[in-house]
């Protein structure tokens, strides 16, 4: 049970972490699709 909880905790950490990491790296759809004349954020 403890291992299962650890697995689920890791799931949340990796998922939330990837969300913010991709944002920081400028790899979101908004950041990639934006241009000089178009802002998608």
């Amino acid at each position, binding site marked *: 049970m403890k291992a299962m909880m650890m697995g689920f905790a890791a*799931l949340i950490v990796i998922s939330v972490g990837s969300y913010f990491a991709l944002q920081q790296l400028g790899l979101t759809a908004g950041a990639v699709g934006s241009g000089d004349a178009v802002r998608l954020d």
Partner: protein
Amino acid sequence: MLRAFLIFVLCLGLMPLAAPHAAAQDAQQTIDRSATGGAQTLEDILARQRGEEVAPKTGDATSNARDLSGQLGTLGGASDPDLWRALRYGSADITVSAGGEVATVLVQDGGMAWLEFRQGPLAKYGGYLLLGTLALLLVFFVLRGKVRLDYEKTGRTVTRFKSFERAAHWLLAGSFILLGITGLLTLFGRMFIAPYISKEFNATLLMASKYIHNNVAWAFMVALVAIFIMWVWHNIPNRTDITWFAQAGGIVGSKHPPAKKFNGGQKIIFWSVILLGGSISLSGVSLLFPFEFPMFMKTFDLMRSVGIESLPIYGPLPTAMAPHEEMQYAQAWHAIVAFVLMAIIIAHIYIGSVGMEGAYDAMGSGEVDEAWARQHHSLWLEELQAKDKAAPKDATPAE
């Protein structure tokens, strides 16, 4: 005299009917469209207004035509159909502020085939596959019942999976279930939620599903790599698997074939998860970063290089593909493989829970009774016991 007069009047009456036809034939032959690059001329317009037949346009009418926004001058103008035709076939001169070359494709024909496939056969047969798997397992459970232990429990346990192994398993399992549910909501929400609950509720659910699906995908990929590294050695096929399959793994009948840490059935699950999960991950990454990692044209080129020119059901492999088509292929492949893996995992969940006595303990506490280990993994138990005997009793763990 009267008869001659009537014939004369009749001829006068019929002349206007015959004249335009002759004139149209002349017009078709004589109109020179070189000045408009093949687009319609003033003569064409006047002829059409007279109700005459106008010969079809020739050449690339849009290339020499004036822009609709400018003065038409002597070159005529590109008509709406010309413009739409150019957009449809990718020959229109499009300028975009963002999105690069991909964004210049405003109309993409192949998209309709993808949409129809997604709303039709994909949803239909994918749904049937999952429901059929559930129905088959239900029938199997009714006929076979739970696979019980033949031996009496000993009370002594052996460690089947360590804590890290179980955590990685649940990371993979949890992420796959979330990805499966959100993927199904994305595909079926419009069919089964929007009409019966509300479009707003479906939209909210889809937005949440999108965030969960896109981010939990990374957890799935991390777990997939961990599982592969941990268990690949134990899942290399060997001779015992033949015996295991020959006896249907002991699930049908009363025999329990010998097996090492993973039996033949578990190896099927393992390689299905690795190969299908890996394929889903690749197509998923391609979808997560649209147009950055197109894979299908490269795959088709590779297939052609080894002599595979066409596929059953699908037909000849395409030789060119628009960037959007690449994405559509990736989405279709992602969903098809995911449906197959979901069906396999449903069977895995069944046998690991209600289908077999004691199976859940392996991933729950990690400890299984020796009786269970002897019945389902006898060779693995013998290896463990041989190791225990080989280890000196007075040995102390290394500092």
